[in-house]
């Protein structure tokens, strides 16, 4: 196989065509699964589309999932620009949620917008702090962040269970969760806005955190490509030797990149605590941290790519639950497998067809140029 001259590959081939081909393949394989399970794949696709777009609450759910995936996808992407594989989004989100709750409950005497502002800060600081320890170990001791962050997911989960059972549990209830935050602190939800316009809709978890996700996307874009920090992080990521030559400290940048990454993952806690549960419930990150890795890879670690990738996973989450509801042969776990296939094709097997596709287009363009 001839190697492709990267400079001749048009951007839309590597950034649009390749992901689309991978996605199509993943959907095809998923269709096979559904077919084997004894259901009609075409009907399943129709259900997914109906479930995620067909009615207003369904669409709101889609955007709610999208919000979470944007946060965790951005988190992974920032660290990845410094060539750090932050698998710890799950744990950082969990601890970030703790930050949100502690700030909100302890500063409830302040005006609500200020509490919100501080709670977002709490999410960032707690998430960043949880990422700081693996970052420090990587920078000074060379302990690989993949190992440490994944361990820190377990530590975070255990720590939170301990806190929720023994320290901050709502003692009037049986379940492992805290007391609810005062109602005025709850983030305005989508149905609140609809009600303002005089439209009455049923409950959905979508809330103004979605806007925060858009702000975070712009922030990441600006940070990575428009600031000295992003520039230095990318330099360390691409060529550590060269960074040292230019007087850029790898040590400092590993820590900065991981902390920003952890902070972004922590924002998931804002959506879940201020927007949805209004208290900490055990296990609220629910795998968003891991799926965020696939979102970032599919979105090529760029906010402009992460947004549609997150939206796609939102559709799958929401549409998937609709499918499992209506098709008795498709269990919830079947749909987890479908998501797995998509992660496989767009993440792990991302380069499976890339050379062929790029070759094809480069040759076509050459022919055109010669003709």
């Amino acid at each position: 196989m001839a190697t492709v001259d990267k400079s001749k590959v048009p951007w839309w081939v590597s950034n649009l065509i390749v992901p689309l081909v991978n996605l199509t393949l993943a959907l095809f394989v998923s269709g096979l699964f559904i077919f084997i399970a004894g259901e009609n794949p075409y009907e399943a696709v129709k259900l997914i589309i109906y479930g995620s777009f067909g009615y207003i609450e369904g669409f709101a759910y889609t955007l709610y999932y999208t919000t979470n995936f944007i946060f965790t996808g951005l988190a992974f992407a920032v660290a990845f620009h410094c060539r750090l594989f932050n698998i710890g989004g799950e744990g950082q989100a969990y601890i970030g949620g703790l930050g949100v709750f502690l700030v909100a409950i302890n500063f409830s005497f302040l005006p609500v917008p200020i509490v919100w502002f501080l709670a977002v800060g709490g999410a960032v600081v707690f998430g960043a702090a949880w990422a700081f320890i693996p970052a420090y170990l990587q920078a000074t001791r060379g302990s690989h962040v993949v190992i440490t962050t994944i361990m820190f997911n377990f530590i975070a989960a255990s720590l939170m269970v301990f806190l929720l059972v023994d320290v901050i549990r709502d003692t009037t209830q049986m379940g492992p969760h805290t007391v609810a935050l005062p109602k005025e602190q709850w983030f305005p939800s989508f149905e609140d806005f609809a009600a303002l316009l005089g439209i009455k809709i049923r409950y959905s978890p979508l809330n103004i955190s979605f806007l925060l996700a858009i702000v975070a996307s712009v922030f990441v874009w600006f940070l990575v490509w428009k600031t000295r920090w992003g520039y230095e992080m990318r330099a360390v990521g691409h060529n550590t030797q060269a960074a040292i030559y230019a007087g850029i400290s790898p040590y400092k940048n590993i820590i900065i990149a991981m902390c920003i990454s952890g902070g972004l993952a922590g924002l998931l806690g804002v959506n879940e605590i201020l927007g949805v549960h209004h208290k900490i419930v055990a296990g609220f990150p629910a795998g968003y941290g891991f799926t965020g890795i696939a979102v970032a890879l599919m979105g090529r670690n760029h906010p402009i790519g992460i947004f549609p990738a997150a939206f796609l996973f939102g559709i799958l989450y929401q549409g998937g639950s609709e499918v499992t509801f209506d098709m008795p042969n498709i269990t919830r776990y079947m749909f987890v497998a479908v998501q797995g296939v998509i992660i496989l094709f767009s993440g792990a097997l991302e380069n499976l067809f890339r050379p062929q596709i790029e070759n094809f287009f480069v040759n076509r363009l050459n022919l055109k140029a010669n003709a």
Partner: protein
Amino acid sequence: MVSPILELKNINKSFGHVHANKNINLTINKGTIHGIIGENGAGKSTLMSIVFGLYKANSGTIKVNGKEINLRSPKDSIVNGIGMVHQHFMLVENFTVLENIILGFEGELVFGKNFVKAKKDLKNLCDTYKLNIDLNSIISDLSVGFRQRVEILKSLYRGAEILILDEPTGVLTPQEVDELFKILRSLNEEGKTIVLITHKLIEIMDLTSQVSVMRQGEMVGHIKTKDTNKEQLAEMMVGRSVLLRLDKSEVKTGDVVFKVEDLTVKDDLDVTRVKNVNLEICAGEILGLAGVTGNGQTELLEALSGIRKVESGEIYLDGKKISDSQNFLNPRELKEKGLAHVPEDRQRMGLVTDFKAYENLIFGYHDQQPFSKSSILNNKDIISHSKTIMEEYDVRPQSPNLITSNFSGGNQQKIILSRELNEKPKVLLVGQPTRGVDIGAIEFIHQRLIDMRDRGAAILLVSVELDEVLSLSDRIAVMFDGKIVGEKENKNVTDRELGLLMAGVV
């Protein structure tokens, strides 16, 4: 009656535009120690890698014992009795000697009969050749000299009749070198053929019976060792190529701006690479530092530019101490003080090849005005600055948005050079400025360096290209084995004189 064991005919090998081996003919006789000598980049290692099946020649034939063979991989050459000990050892560090040697030749799934037999055979080999290796020791516990013996043993166990050693003494202490030579002699007495690749004349004179000299990809001569001497070999090695002539005005030196006192530097493996080096460079002069690669120039440059820690000694800039073993400035602080550095290895150190050209054109200066203000990059100014200097330094293509790896080697070098020279440094450290660069760019780069010198910069030029050192420098120092072994005004210095110094003869 001597019979040829290995014959090479018209071997050609190119890497891209570089013609590494041109029509090489070589005959090695059975039972001899044959030396192959040449400067860095003469094509010795490439040639031997072809013989060992690591590279495939573009054309030419290879015969072993008179039979033409087709080498597709090292496996083929091992079958044909060719063994190679590389400059960098190919050993699994956490395996024992025994495990390393049988690796790939285990011959059974569960270690048993073959394993025991291998152990016995190896014991015999060790005894025959007085290798004195404990088969059960872990590689990472062994010294470099012993690791090399393991490599030799590995080749012998696999049935090597021809043993190729690529710069075997580069990593050894003098005592280890003596031991190695003893082993090589005893191998030779037992009838093995040995090919020794080196750039050290002393080793050739000591050990070999035949010597072939390579220069710039060509074989320039075969000669019996006893019919020649070091001086003649040095001359053959360096050759008498036409110097690139430059318009160079008379040197007008100013005060000493850069001074190195008694500098000692260690490398990452804690080996002392730079030994008590003293240098002085005045404003408006170029000091050329000649020497064969691996004699401490890399570590010296890294220490001077703040990348590597100074073990002992002091460095002064403008009469002020900038570095010693306790306090040192980092590369960024040195840049602010007017010290620029063009590193030896542009892709490993000088550039982030995945970056766009404009990002590399500010690399290291990215935190200075007007490129960034309070941590935010000012892309408009960066791009317009990039366009200007790309035009000034004739970087082609002149597109600041192109990814750097898409530029040719010469243009990548111009990117680095334009970045470093544009800051008008007081002191400029330059390592291998024209390595792998086409002729046109070489002239351009040389002219720019001369311009810098005329503008009053103090320049340290480190190069393994003797021609380059001779045509650019006002003074020349030669580095060998971490020490400055000679320093001369660049008047009536011959390349032969320098060649002898570089080979550590005088």
